[in-house]
């Protein structure tokens, strides 16, 4: 049996236990610190870097050019020259993507200029015009995407909260889960801000998908929490906090396994995406998801569960139970 299974046994029986709930102040502090750092660094960098889809402009992509392999400098000078031929002062942004293709971004060009530049780039890089892809994005497109994304976020949160509150029969779980979700979202976008990665619509898909994943992970943990706390009932020998902590410990292996399994395909896309394709749909979705999945797993365990305890702790029922435990078994300790 693998080591994880043995750890799983110990965690399940309680032979080994991590104090997730008890040390919650530590986790809260870490979470808050990371969030503050993410925001601060992003602000210092001057905010997020938005992809061309948000800025508007024209983009060209030359595939299979030998110049791309020679290096950015060579490729850039070729591109600048070609662009200058067609439009003066266009100030192109050139980058190498995925090894053998060059991406040239300019301000918005007219259809005529676009065609000319395609031809010029094909010429300059010694490829046929069929190897030059072009796209053009209107400036309002980005605003559109952003608006829709925000709308999607709000609608999703609403739906998800209602479903969770109904399923768990307590709105406090929904609140805890949603706080954890925001934590994930802020940190993931924060990584983009701190590293200065371009935020593209594909990355936004990634962010929005994190919503689903983050909740998914929290739900798996909370399901066990609910089971433990409701099964215990009045007869419980544990305090509420202990029940929750045991649930988190018992689902730890499950959490780790599901997260690893979720991260593996994402990592594969990320790897292939960056290696073969460079910046693009695949890499952008995968990067956001990769970070989001890891952060999401962390937050389910370290934030959502302790937060739930925090929210319930002061309920009279829960308090009474805790007091009863103390009174009934004041001297009990671990027998290990």
């Amino acid at each position, binding site marked *: *049996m*693998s080591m994880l299974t043995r750890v799983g046994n110990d965690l399940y*029986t309680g032979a080994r236990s991590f104090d997730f709930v008890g040390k919650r102040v530590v986790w809260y502090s870490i979470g808050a610190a990371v969030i503050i750092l993410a925001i601060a660094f992003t602000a210092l960098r001057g905010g997020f870097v938005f992809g061309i889809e948000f800025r508007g402009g024209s983009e060209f992509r030359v595939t299979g050019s030998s110049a791309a392999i020679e290096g950015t400098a060579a490729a850039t000078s070729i591109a600048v020259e070609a662009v200058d031929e067609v439009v003066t002062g266009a100030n192109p942004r050139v980058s190498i993507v995925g090894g053998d293709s060059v991406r040239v971004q300019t301000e918005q060009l007219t259809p*005529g200029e676009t065609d000319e530049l395609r031809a010029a780039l094909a010429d300059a890089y010694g490829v046929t015009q069929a190897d030059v*892809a072009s796209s053009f994005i209107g400036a309002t497109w980005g605003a559109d*995407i952003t608006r829709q994304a925000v709308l999607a976020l709000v609608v999703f949160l609403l739906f998800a909260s209602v479903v969770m509150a109904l399923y768990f029969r307590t709105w406090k779980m929904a609140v805890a889960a949603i706080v954890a979700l925001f934590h994930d979202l802020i940190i993931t976008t924060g990584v983009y801000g701190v590293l200065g990665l371009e935020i593209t*619509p594909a990355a936004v898909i990634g962010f929005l998908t994190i919503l689903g994943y983050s909740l998914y992970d929290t739900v798996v943990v909370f399901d066990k929490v609910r089971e433990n706390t409701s099964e215990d009932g009045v007869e419980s020998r544990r305090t509420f906090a202990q029940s929750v902590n045991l649930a988190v410990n018992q689902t730890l292996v499950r959490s780790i396994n599901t997260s690893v*399994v*979720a991260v593996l395909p994402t990592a*594969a896309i990320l790897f292939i995406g960056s290696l073969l394709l460079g910046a693009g749909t695949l890499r952008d979705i995968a990067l956001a998801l990769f970070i989001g999945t890891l952060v999401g797993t962390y937050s389910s365990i370290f934030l959502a569960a302790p937060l739930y305890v925090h929210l319930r702790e002061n309920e009279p029922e829960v308090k009474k139970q805790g007091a009863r435990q103390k009174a009934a078994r004041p001297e009990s300790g671990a027998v290990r």
Partner: protein
Amino acid sequence: MARSTPERNAIRSLVWLLVIIVGLIAANGASVLFNNGQWTPKLALDLEGGTQIILAPQLASGDQVDQEQLEQAVSIIRQRVDAGGVSEAEINTQGGENIVVAIPGVPDPATIERIQSSAKLEFRPVLLADLASNQILDDPEATDEDSADGDETDEAATDDEAAEGETAEPTPSASPTDASDPAWITEELQREFDTFECSSLDVVGANVAPVDEPLVTCEADGSIKYILGPVEVEGEAIADARSGLIASSTGVTTNEFGVFIDFNEEGTAQFREVTERLVSLTGIRNQFAIVLDGRVISAPRTISAITDGSPQISGNFTQESAQVLADQLKFGALPLGFEVQSSENITATLGLSQLQSGIIAGLIGIALVIGYALIQYRALGGVIIASLVIAGIVTYLIITYLSNQQGYRLSLAGVAGLIISIGVIADSFIVYFERIRDELRDGRRLDGAVEAGWKRAFRTILISDVINFIAAAVLFVLAVGNVRGFAFTLGITTIVDLVIVALFTHPMMQLLGRTRFFGDGHPLSGLDPKALGAVYRGRAQFRQPQSVPAVKRASSSREAQRRQTIAERKAAEARGEGEDAR
């Protein structure tokens, strides 16, 4: 052979799954045989190469476009793209306000420009008409009427008059005094008219003219060509248009379909002026042409002057053709232009390399997941692999079917969604297997653990899949661009996940639980109770609550938290008994 219930249930579930798969294969086979379907999903432009243009309709007044207008806009654009001779263009609405035009290859700027231009509906008087060359009219079509009483003319009449019109060609002398003045027809225009081919209507720019100039054009079906006077009423003047049964002068509804137009105030005045003049004219010049995007969609005769701004057009309409004309009038009248939001051109080589990369990434992802599953779950990993394979087959069949039936196209983001879903699907198995292990740890036999584990795991899987599905659905409905492709595959696979876990994974576990390999907890089975720290206690054995030695401790609240849990007691108990057993 005494079969237990779980076993029968398991086999029933597997049979259902088989039925679903066979059904999907049959449905796909049917579309391949009868509907030009394919066994592979169609690819979106980012994988196949081509141009995708996203257009946002622009209303002059800045109003929001409603769904009906959007549908009409799609059909307007479809006509324009088809007119450009582009084949296999896909035109869809997206997100309730955008129109996505996907065209193979690179469209010429003229096509794009035409797609963008606003639909223009205008009323022009007919100056001259003729049969289009080499065309024979066999089916008389719509003509006109007025609001009060309705006789109808048909195109046979138009033909006679057309011939008449041509012979009785007036000689242009002075400058024209009104829109119906034959003086508009200059020699040059006459020559253009004589050589005009209706087939050239599809050529860009062949049928446009400024509003104050005459226009040479054809009936939309290419049957008749016209010289039309300057624009007299613009489409914007139409307040509404609908189709319906015509009422006779006595108010009795006839069986005849007609089209009813309502002009706004300005349109009413203009239209009255036009009809007052036209009604006094004879022959071809009695007709006015309704021109949409440079084509004559109808050229009714004027029977009387329309003073109330509510003309009606009658003729040999069917319910459908009346509806079409009414829609054309209503929506063509909207000064609906389109703004290009984004235009993306992907070369075929780039598309192919992206598809390949996607497939490679998917394969690596599957390999990693399978590897991890085998390490963590030993032989159970085999169940995960089998489940993934079945899920893959079902997903593939569904996507191919939708591609054939609904025109779904797999995009790069869609491929990403599929790869991500490998993890989501595998997640469910892990939730289930960990549950079974938990039950084994509690000392259940495997068959019991499978049933008890399933009950609890399914609830968890269900709620998490619901959450995932909500995320996918919200993204699909609200988000724009390639988000939809991603959300779509993610949503599909979430449903597939539920089906597979219920109809395959669980039944397989029920059946495997009967085998000696799994049932006796072979060390490689992944379900070895010993390794899981549990020992079978026997059915009738009750566990006595273990009395905790009253060890006095200077207990702090931290200590209190480490008080023994039920699970701890179980463990202690299990350990004790385990030792006894040894």
